[in-house]
C-alpha cells in the first residue's frame, strides 16, 4: 500500500524552480529516504507536504486524498508529523510540556472542563502525562521531564522533537536531517530510533546527508537534484546509478 503519492509537484520561488514535476510514491510502514546535494529541494518538499509552503502546481495525495491547500494544523490532524532541520522546540517549556503540547490533537479537552477541573479533566490530564512519559521513554528522555527544552544538549533536542512528533499520533514521520551534527554514537542511537519507529507501524520519511545512515536504514530512496527527481530505487540501485554519482561528484572531466 502507498500512503503518500506526489503527482507532478512543482514549486517556483520567483523564477527559480525549487521542485519541478516531482512524482513518486511512498510505501506504508517503510523507511523512505530523500537525498540530494544542497539546494536540491528536499526541505521544500517537506514544507509542501506539511502545508507550510503551497506548491505552485501538482498534487499530494495522502491516503488517496489531495492535501494541497490544507493548513498545517489540518495536515497534522490527518496524520503527518515532522521534525525540523534547524530544531524548532518550545524552548521555554519543559521537556514534558513539549510532548504534552504535541498531544493537542488527541486530547479533546473542553475549556469549561479545565475551568471546573471535572473528574474527566483530571483523569484525562493524568493519561496525557502517562502517554507523554511513554513517548519520552521511546526516545530515552524520560529522566529529563522537568528540564527546559532549550537547556538540553543538542542530540537530546533532536530526540525530543521526535517525541513531540510521535505525540501527535501521526502515521507518517518526516525527519529532516535527524543526525546532523551528531557524533557516531548518537547517530547509531538515532538509527535505532528510526528502526523502532518502523516497528511500531510508522512510515518514516527521511532527509539525510549521512550516506551511512541512508544506506543503513532505507528501503527505498529517491534522489533530487536542482528540484528534479534524477533517480529512485533501493540503496543498491541508487548507489550505482551514474546520474547520482554525477550529481554528487560532478561530471568526469574531458580534456
Amino acid at each position: 500500500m502507498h500512503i503518500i503519492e506526489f503527482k507532478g509537484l512543482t514549486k517556483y520561488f520567483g523564477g527559480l524552480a525549487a521542485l519541478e514535476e516531482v512524482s513518486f510514491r511512498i510505501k506504508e510502514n517503510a523507511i523512505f529516504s530523500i537525498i540530494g546535494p544542497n539546494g536540491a529541494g528536499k526541505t521544500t518538499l517537506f514544507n509542501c507536504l506539511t502545508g507550510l509552503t503551497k506548491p505552485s502546481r501538482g498534487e499530494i495525495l495522502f491516503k488517496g486524498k489531495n492535501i494541497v491547500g490544507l493548513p498545517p494544523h489540518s495536515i497534522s490532524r490527518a496524520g503527518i508529523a515532522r521534525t525540523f532541520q534547524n530544531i524548532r522546540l518550545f524552548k521555554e517549556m519543559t521537556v514534558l510540556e513539549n510532548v504534552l503540547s504535541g498531544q493537542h490533537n488527541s486530547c479533546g479537552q473542553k475549556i469549561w472542563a479545565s475551568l471546573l477541573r471535572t473528574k474527566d479533566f483530571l483523569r484525562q490530564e493524568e493519561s496525557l502525562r502517562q502517554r507523554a512519559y511513554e513517548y519520552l521513554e521511546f526516545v530515552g528522555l524520560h529522566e529529563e521531564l522537568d528540564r527546559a527544552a532549550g537547556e538540553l544538549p543538542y542530540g537530546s533536542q533532536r530526540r525530543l522533537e521526535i517525541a513531540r512528533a510521535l505525540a501527535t499520533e501521526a502515521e507518517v514521520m518526516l525527519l529532516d536531517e535527524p543526525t546532523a551534527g551528531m557524533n557516531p554514537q548518537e547517530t547509531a542511537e538515532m538509527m535505532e530510533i528510526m528502526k523502532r519507529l518502523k516497528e511500531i507501524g510508522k512510515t518514516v520519511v527521511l532527509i539525510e546527508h549521512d550516506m551511512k545512515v541512508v544506506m543503513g536504514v532505507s528501503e527505498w530512496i529517491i534522489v533530487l537534484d536542482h528540484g528534479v527527481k534524477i533517480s529512485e530505487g533501493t540503496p543498491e540501485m541508487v548507489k550505482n546509478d551514474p546520474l547520482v554519482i554525477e550529481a554528487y561528484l560532478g561530471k568526469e572531466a574531458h580534456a
Partner: protein
Amino acid sequence: MSIAWLMRIPNWLLIPAWFGVLSFPFTGAKTAIVISGGILGAGILWRFLERTIALSRGKKFSLFEQIKTIPSTAYLYLSLSVALLLPFITSPYVVDTASLAGIYIILSLGLNIVVGYTGLLNLGFAAFYAIGAYSYALLNTTLALGFWESLPISMAISAVAGFLLGIPALRLRGDYLAIVTLGFGEITRIVLNNWVSVTNGPNGIAGIQRPSIIGIEFKGVTDYYYLVLFFVLFTIFLINRVINSKAGRAWMSIRDDEIAASTIGIDTFLYKLYAFTFGALWAGLAGQLFAAKMRFVSPESFTFLESVLILSMVILGGQGSIGGSIIGAIILVVLPEILREFEQYRMVFLGAGLIFMMIFRPQGLIISRHNKP
C-alpha cells in the same frame, strides 16, 4: 589617580552611604542620616544574627540562603493573610490604594495572557478596560441595570471587542500587530471622546451606582476592597486553571515557535484569537470595577499611557508568570504613591528604576519556572 580603593569599601558601608546620598536632596540632611544609619544598623544586626547562629552550630550560616528555602506555598498563605487582614492593620488611604492595585492586578493578569503566554504585543489594552468601564456606566445609567446584572454583559462586550479586533489584527505579526493594537486603543478613546450623544464626550458619565448585595451597598473603602479582593482571587483561580490546560500549552507553544506549533496540530490563528478574547474578558471585569469604584468614567482615564502602564506591570513582574503580574501591578501602583512627596521627581525615580530593571534583570522580577538562568 587610582580608584581601586573604591572597590575595597565593604558593602555594609557602601549600601547605607549610597542610600544616604540618594535621599539627601529630597529629605534633607537629618532624615538622610537617619535612613543610612537605619540601614547600617539593620545590616549589622543581620550579620550579628548570622555570626551567632554560625557559632552555635559550628558551621557557616547564611540567612539569605535560608530565606530562599522557604517554600512558595508559605509565601502564598502569608500574602493571602496579609491581603485579608489589610483593612484592620492599615489606614483607609492604604486600603483604597490596595483596591486600585487589585484592579490593576486583574488588568495585568489579563494582558499577561496575551503578551506573556502567547507572545503577542498589545499596545492598546486600555481600550478593553475602557469598553468594560463604559459598558457598566451606560448599562447602569441608561438601563438602570445593577452591578451584578451588568457584570457578565460588560465582560462579554469586552471579550467580543477583543475577538472582533483579533480577526483582522492577528493576521499581522510582531511590530505590525503592536501598531494595529495601538491604533485600536486610540480609536476607542477618540470615539468615547466624540460620541457625545452616547458617552457624553469629554465630560464623562457620572452618577454610576455602587455595587450592592441583597440590598446592602458596598459603601466604605473597606467593603469595596473586599469586593475587589474577591474578584482578584477569582481571576487568579480561573486563569491559573486555563494556563495549566490544553489552551495554556497551545498559547505557550505559539509564543515559543509558531511554525512548530502549527505542525503539531494547533490552529495558531484560532488560539491567538482565544488569547485576545480571554485577555479582553478580564479587562472588561477590571473596567467595571473601576467604574463602580470611581462612580464616574471619562475618556482621559484610558489613554495610551494607561496601556503602557499595564504593559510595564507585565514586563516588570516577569512575562508568563502569574505571581510576576501581581507583583508588577502592586509595585507600579504603590511606588508612585510612596514617591508622592517627591512630587515632580517621582516619575524620574520610576523611570530610572525601570531602566535599571531592564539592564540587570530583563526577565522581570519573577522568572517563570522554566527559564531560570
